C-alpha cells in the first residue's frame, strides 16, 4: 500500500529566510527544475515523516500575489491549482508589516495556512515582541516561531503542518482582511453575481476582490470558466462597479484596496506587537556606512569584484590543470588500448577532446557560482545593484544587470543563467542579448596568439581595447534594443536592501551546485554532440586523394635512413641520422594533415564561405577556424594550429605565430579577425542557454544573427579604415 501523501507549499517574501527553511526541511532530497512554461526555478523535496510522504514545494519569493511578475503568477497558480494541503507563509518577524502584506493575501485565498514567524531571534534582538496567541486568534491561523539559520522550530513547524493537513478543517472564513463599507458592498455584490452563475471555480470572495482590482488573469479565467455570455455579464458589472468606486474615492479601487490592506495590517501589528525601542540595533546599517558609503562604496565594490576574479582564475587554475592532465591520461590510455581507426578517432579526437575543452572550465564556474551565491546570501548583491543602478540605467538597464554582465567576462553560460535575479522579463532578455559581447575567457587565447604575434609590443593595449569594444557594443546594443524591440518602461527600481546575514555553508553549496549541475548537463548534451559534428566534418571524407603519395614518401625515407644507419659506424652519426629522419617524417605528416584539412568537409565549407570573409581580410583558413569556433571559441586556436602550420599539437606558441606571419596575414587582418572573434555568435553552449533562459528559439536565432552581422560590420570597418589610414 502506498503511503498517504501531503503537499506543503512554502510562500514568503524574498529574503524572508524561506529558502533556508526549505533546505532545512528537505536536506539533500531536493529536485530543482523549472515551473512549466516559465524560467522560474521550481524547487521541491520529498520527505518522510510520521508515516506520510510529504512533498515540500518552495514557491518563488514574492512581495504580493497580484499578477505583475511571473513569480507572483506562478506562486498564486500553485496555491489555487496545485491545491497544496497546507501553505506555510513564512514571515520575517523583524519585518512584520511588509511580510503580513503577502501573508494576509494568502489568508484571503482560504487555503489552510500556517504563519511561520521566522528569524524570531533577530526580532527579539530588535526589541520586537510578538503575541503569537493573539495573532493566531485574530486571523484564525496556526502560528509557529522559527529560526531558520539555526534550524530551530523547523521540526515543530513540520509537525504542525501535518496536524493541520490531517485536521481537514478549513480556515474560518470570517477572520480575514475587511475593507471599508463601500468596497465590502461591492465585493458582496460581485460575489453574489458569481455564485448565481453556478459553483465558482475558486473561492468567490477572492474572485470578487481580484475582479475589483482589475486582475487581468482572473478576468480572462472568468470568461474561460463561465463561457462568453455569463462571463461578459459579470465583467460588465465589475467595470461598472469599478467606475462607481473610482468616483467615490477619486482613485483606482486597487490602490484603495492596497491602502486598506496596509491599514488592516497596521491595526493587526498594533494588537500583537510590543516594541521596545531602546534595544533596537541595526547592524546592517553600520555595515552599509562603509559598503555603500559615498567615497568607500565603489572602491570596496571593485575590490570584491577583483577578489572574485582572482579566486576564479588563480585558484581555479590548479584544478583546471588536474582536469587537463586527467583528460590527457584518459586520451593516452584510450590511444594505447583502442585499435587505430574511425572509432578511436571519434572517441579521442571527437568526444573526449570536445568534452575536455569545456570540462576544464568547471572549476572556474564552480568558484564563480560560489562567489555569486556568497554575494546573494549575505545580502551584498542588492547593494551592488544600488551602487551600479545609475550607470546601468543609462543603457536602459537595471542595477541588477551588472553582475550577470560582469560574469560574462568569465563565461557567458553562467552569466546568462544569473540573469534570473532580474524580475522584469524585458530587462532579463535585454541583459541576455548583450551579455555575449562581454569577452569571455575562451576568447582570450585567440587574442594572445594574434596580438602576441602581430603586435608584440602593444599586445596588452590591443587586448584592452578589444574588451572595451565589446563593452561599447553592448552599450549601443542595449540602447538600440531598448528603443525598439524591447521598448517600454524599465521596471520600477523598488528594491529591498535586506539586512546583512551570515551565509550558511550548506545553502551556499546548494546554490552553487544547483547552477553547476545545469552547466554539466549542457556539457553532456549539446557540447558533446556539437564536438562530434565538428569532428565528423573535419575527418570526412575518409579517403582523400592526396596530391602527393605521403605514405609512400614516408616509407621511402624510412628505408633510406635505415640503410644509411646500417652503414654508419659511430653512435653519434646514428643519432644524427635518427633525428634527421624524424624531422623529415614529421614535415611530411604535417603537409599531409594540412592537405587533409583543406579537403575535408570542414575545409570545403571554409573555402565556400571564404568569399564572405575576404572583405574582412580573413583567408579561407581563418574562415574554417572561425567556423569551428562555434562549438567553443578556444577551438579557433587549435584549428588555426592545424591549418596554418600543420602542427596539430602546437605547444610552442612561437611556432604558430611564425606560421601565421609567413602565411601572409597582416597585422590589420589579425586585428580584424580578433574583432570578429570578439563579437561573432556566442558558442553553442551559450546559444542553447539563451534558448533555455528566454524559452524561445526566436531569441537565440536573433542573437545568432545579430551578433554575426555586428561582427562582420565591425571587422569590415576595422579592416577598411585601417587600409585607408595605411596600416597593414
Amino acid at each position, binding site marked *: 500500500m502506498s503511503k498517504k501523501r501531503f503537499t506543503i507549499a512554502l510562500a514568503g517574501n524574498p529574503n524572508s529566510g524561506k529558502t533556508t527553511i526549505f533546505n532545512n526541511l528537505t536536506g539533500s532530497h531536493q529536485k530543482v527544475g523549472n515551473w512549466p512554461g516559465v524560467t522560474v526555478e521550481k524547487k521541491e523535496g520529498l520527505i518522510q515523516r510520521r508515516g506520510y510522504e510529504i512533498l515540500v514545494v518552495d514557491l518563488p519569493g514574492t512581495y504580493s500575489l497580484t499578477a505583475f511578475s511571473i513569480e507572483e503568477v506562478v506562486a498564486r497558480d500553485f496555491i489555487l491549482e496545485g491545491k497544496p494541503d497546507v501553505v506555510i507563509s513564512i514571515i520575517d518577524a523583524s519585518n512584520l508589516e511588509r511580510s503580513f502584506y503577502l501573508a494576509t493575501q494568502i489568508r484571503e485565498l482560504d487555503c489552510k495556512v500556517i504563519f511561520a514567524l521566522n528569524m524570531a531571534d533577530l526580532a527579539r534582538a530588535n526589541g520586537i515582541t510578538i503575541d503569537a496567541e493573539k495573532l493566531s486568534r485574530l486571523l484564525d491561523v496556526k502560528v509557529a516561531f522559527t529560526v531558520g539559520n539555526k534550524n530551530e522550530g523547523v521540526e515543530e513547524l513540520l509537525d504542525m503542518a501535518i496536524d493541520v493537513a490531517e485536521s481537514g478543517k478549513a480556515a474560518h472564513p470570517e477572520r480575514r482582511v475587511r475593507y471599508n463599507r463601500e468596497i465590502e458592498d461591492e465585493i458582496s455584490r460581485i460575489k453574489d453575481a458569481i455564485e448565481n452563475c453556478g459553483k465558482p471555480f475558486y473561492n468567490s470572495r477572492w474572485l470578487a476582490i481580484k475582479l475589483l482590482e482589475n486582475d487581468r488573469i482572473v478576468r480572462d479565467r472568468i470568461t474561460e470558466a463561465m463561457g462568453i455570455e455569463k462571463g461578459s455579464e459579470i465583467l460588465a458589472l465589475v467595470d461598472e462597479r469599478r467606475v462607481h468606486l473610482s468616483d467615490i474615492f477619486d482613485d483606482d479601487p486597487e*490602490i484603495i484596496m492596497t491602502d486598506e490592506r*496596509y491599514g488592516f495590517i497596521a491595526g493587526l501589528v498594533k494588537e500583537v506587537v510590543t516594541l521596545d525601542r531602546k534595544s533596537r540595533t541595526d547592524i546592517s546599517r553600520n555595515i552599509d556606512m562603509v559598503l555603500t558609503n559615498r567615497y568607500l562604496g565603489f572602491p570596496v565594490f571593485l575590490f570584491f569584484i577583483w577578489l572574485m576574479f582572482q579566486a576564479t582564475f588563480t585558484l581555479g587554475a590548479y584544478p583546471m590543470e588536474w582536469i587537463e592532465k586527467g583528460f590527457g591520461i584518459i586520451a593516452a590510455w584510450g590511444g594505447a588500448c583502442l585499435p587505430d581507426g574511425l572509432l578511436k578517432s571519434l572517441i579521442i579526437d571527437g568526444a573526449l577532446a570536445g568534452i575536455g575543452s569545456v570540462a576544464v572550465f568547471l572549476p572556474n564556474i564552480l568558484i564563480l557560482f560560489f562567489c555569486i551565491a556568497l554575494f546573494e546570501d549575505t545580502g551584498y548583491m542588492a547593494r551592488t545593484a544600488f551602487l551600479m543602478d545609475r550607470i546601468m540605467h543609462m543603457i536602459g538597464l537595471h542595477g541588477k544587470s551588472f553582475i550577470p554582465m560582469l560574469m560574462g567576462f568569465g563565461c557567458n553560460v553562467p552569466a546568462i543563467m544569473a540573469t534570473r535575479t532580474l524580475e522584469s522579463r524585458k530587462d532579463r532578455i535585454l541583459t541576455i542579448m548583450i551579455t555575449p559581447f562581454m569577452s569571455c575567457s575562451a576568447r582570450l587565447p585567440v587574442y594572445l596568439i594574434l596580438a602576441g604575434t602581430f603586435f608584440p609590443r602593444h599586445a596588452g593595449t590591443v587586448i584592452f581595447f578589444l574588451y572595451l569594444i565589446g563593452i561599447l557594443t553592448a552599450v549601443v546594443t542595449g540602447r538600440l534594443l531598448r528603443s525598439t524591440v524591447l521598448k517600454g518602461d524599465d521596471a520600477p527600481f523598488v528594491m529591498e536592501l535586506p539586512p546583512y546575514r551570515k551565509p550558511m555553508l550548506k545553502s551556499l553549496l546548494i546554490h552553487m551546485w544547483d547552477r553547476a549541475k545545469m552547466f554539466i548537463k549542457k556539457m553532456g548534451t549539446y557540447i558533446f554532440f556539437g564536438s562530434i559534428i565538428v569532428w565528423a566534418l573535419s575527418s570526412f571524407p575518409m579517403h582523400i586523394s592526396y596530391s602527393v603519395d605521403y605514405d609512400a614518401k614516408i616509407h621511402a625515407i624510412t628505408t633510406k635512413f635505415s640503410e644509411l644507419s646500417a652503414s654508419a659506424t659511430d653512435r653519434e652519426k646514428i643519432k644524427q641520422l635518427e633525428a634527421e629522419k624524424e624531422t623529415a617524417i614529421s614535415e611530411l605528416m604535417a603537409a599531409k594533415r594540412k592537405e587533409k584539412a583543406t579537403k575535408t568537409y570542414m575545409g570545403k565549407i571554409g573555402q565556400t564561405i571564404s568569399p564572405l570573409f575576404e572583405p574582412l581580410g580573413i583567408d579561407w583558413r581563418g574562415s574554417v577556424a572561425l567556423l569551428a569556433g562555434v562549438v567553443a571559441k578556444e577551438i579557433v586556436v587549435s584549428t588555426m594550429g592545424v591549418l596554418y602550420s600543420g602542427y596539430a599539437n602546437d605547444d610552442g606558441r612561437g611556432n604558430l605565430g611564425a606560421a601565421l606571419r609567413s602565411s601572409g596575414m597582416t597585422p590589420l587582418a589579425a586585428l580584424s579577425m580578433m574583432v570578429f572573434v570578439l563579437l561573432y555568435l556566442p558558442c553553442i553552449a551559450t546559444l542553447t542557454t539563451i534558448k533555455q533562459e528566454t524559452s524561445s528559439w526566436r531569441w537565440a536565432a536573433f542573437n545568432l544573427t545579430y551578433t554575426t552581422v555586428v561582427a562582420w560590420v565591425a571587422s569590415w570597418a576595422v579592416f577598411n579604415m585601417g587600409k585607408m589610414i595605411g596600416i597593414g
Partner: protein
Amino acid sequence: MLLSQLKEGEDAMILRVGGHGSFRRRIMEMGIVPGTEVHVEKYAPLKDPLELLVKGYHVSLRVEEASLIAVEKMADRGQAQ
C-alpha cells in the same frame, strides 16, 4: 514637497503616491502608502538611487520615482530613529 527633494537623514510623512498603474501599485505594495513615515537613509554614491527606511526595513528607489511621491517633511527629531 516631493520625496526626491529630501536630504539625507530627513524624515517625512507620505501624502500621495503618483505615477501610473503598475508602478504605483508596486510602490504601495512595498509599504510606501500614504500616512507612512519615511526616513531618507542615504543617496547612492552617484546620487541615484536613494535608500529609504520604511516600516522598519530598507528599500531603494530611483530619484525619478521618488519625485512622484508627495510628502510632508517632519520636524527634525534628531537621531531618534
